[in-house]
């Protein structure tokens, strides 16, 4: 399959060189794979470090900047970064106020961030961690690795980032991050499989005329396969899957997220259907964000994330943000 790459081995490094070229407000260490906001550490402010496998752009590197992450650590494609990266990032952003690690719940990410936290604490950096696990497609039980972290990561990074920007202390920033995670649920759908550069083709076989319901963001197959559905049917299914688990008692933030290869035209149509379903289920919507934010390479499809937001979360969500991937209020 055709890809706009040189060789698979340098895909991540090549992208990092491009990020450095395009975004002078970021300090990109291509060799050690750390993206840091220029000027860090910021006196008296908590540092926010996230990271994960590459292939989900703009997550996480695209969310480094004022009002969001202080640093991001990209791993190989769909492979968590190594502990050395996060330890290096923590050292780069710690002002003495401590560092929050935002970790998506995957076995690899959890293990590598845990090891990084030990390394950073050995160097005297105070670390707090928040685990993002919002994906209702995974039955959280003894029989799985637990719910995956997906779209809610954006809300966690945005809201915790705004609190850190205001100078909130580490325990407060961490508590807000956990509140956002606990208030958020997601559900994703694939219309096509994605192709990793290493494999050079689709990571699973999804025939024409069928879709996968309940997919993650790493090209892993989902919970169930069905004949192709309409945008409205997908919205019904996704929103209902979320509302089975989260009964919001406050207006929600809605992320209508593209997986990478679905055109915005289709995504906006889907956003309208999501709004229709939420109105039918009597769930008020406070804000809606539509776009490709937490992607899975070239997968076609979408995910919905709902976060029930009290006034404080909404205020922090609305606070100014200035990153390559998300920018408003400036």
């Amino acid at each position, binding site marked *: 399959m055709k890809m706009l790459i040189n060789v698979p081995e340098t895909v991540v490094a090549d992208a990092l060189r491009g990020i450095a070229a395009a975004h002078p407000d970021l300090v990109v260490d291509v060799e050690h794979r750390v993206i840091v906001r220029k000027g860090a550490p910021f006196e008296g402010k908590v540092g926010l470090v996230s990271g994960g496998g590459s292939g989900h752009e703009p997550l996480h590197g695209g969310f480094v900047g004022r009002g969001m992450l202080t640093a991001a650590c990209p791993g*190989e494609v769909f*492979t*968590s970064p190594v502990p050395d990266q996060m330890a290096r990032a923590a050292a780069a952003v710690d002002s003495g106020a401590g560092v929050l690690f935002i970790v998506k719940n995957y076995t*690899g990410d959890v*293990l590598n961030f845990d090891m990084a936290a030990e390394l950073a604490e050995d160097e005297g950096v105070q670390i707090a961690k928040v685990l993002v696990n919002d994906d209702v497609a995974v039955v959280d039980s003894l*029989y*799985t690795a637990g719910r995956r972290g997906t779209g809610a990561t954006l809300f966690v990074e945005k809201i915790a980032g705004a609190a850190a920007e205001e100078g909130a202390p580490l325990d407060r920033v961490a508590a807000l991050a956990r509140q956002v995670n606990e208030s958020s649920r997601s559900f994703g759908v694939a219309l096509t499989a994605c192709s990793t550069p290493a494999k050079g083709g689709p990571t699973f076989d999804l025939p024409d005329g069928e879709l996968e319901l309940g997919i993650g963001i790493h090209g892993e197959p989902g919970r169930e396969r069905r004949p192709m559905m309409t945008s409205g049917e997908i919205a019904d299914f996704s929103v209902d899957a979320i509302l089975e688990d989260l009964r919001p008692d406050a207006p929600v933030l809605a992320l209508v997220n593209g997986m990478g290869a679905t055109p915005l035209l289709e995504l906006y149509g889907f956003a309208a259907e999501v709004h229709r379903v939420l109105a039918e289920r009597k769930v008020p919507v406070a804000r809606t964000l539509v776009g490709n934010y937490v992607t899975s390479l070239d997968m076609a499809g979408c995910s919905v994330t709902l976060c029930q937001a009290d006034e404080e979360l909404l205020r922090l969500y609305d606070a100014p943000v200035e990153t390559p991937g998300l920018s408003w209020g400036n």
Partner: protein
Amino acid sequence: MNATPPDGSPIDAAFVRRWLDTAATVVEREAAALTELDSPIGDADHGTNMRRGFVAARTAVEQEPPDTPGAVLVAVGRQLISTVGGASGPLYGTLLRRAGKQLGDEPAVSAAQFRDALRAGVDGVAQLGGAAPGDKTMLDALFPAVDAMSKALDGGSGTADALAAAAAAADEGAVATTPLRARKGRASYLGERSIGHQDPGATSAALLVTAFADTAREAGA
């Protein structure tokens, strides 16, 4: 000074370095096959990640060869943690670091000491990953390998035969993951659909154990 222990030739730093060389060669050769196994129930990168890790480990050990078997294992483990990523990096890194630390700074160890070190490493993996036998993970190759090695040593086998028994058991354990339903790692998201696929982690674990057996056989241990 290092008398040959009763259970076979001593395992020294040169032995573990030869193992590393063999393991790196095998991982490179099998990388595509491991990635293929990782496609239906994972994310199609296990071979790529393992190859990156073992190439880095071989280079690091060649540049600064440690002089005890324990130190070689610790060095390889540290390189895997720093270069592999994913779950495999910390898990294999912990396996080898724990085993290496257990060996201490002895210049050469017996097969029984080596078996004890492997057991300590495997226990470390179980503790870190929280998996149990039958969860369709690398432990389904590693636990049987250590048990088989123990049994062979108790029965009077030498190093090479004991490691050969470990390799056979690891292989068998890896193949036996096929009908299992994954309970840990990324394959667990698939539930029932993980059944019918051999676990890539158990498969790579069997390759690494087999590399020990091959190293011992070639050395005539």
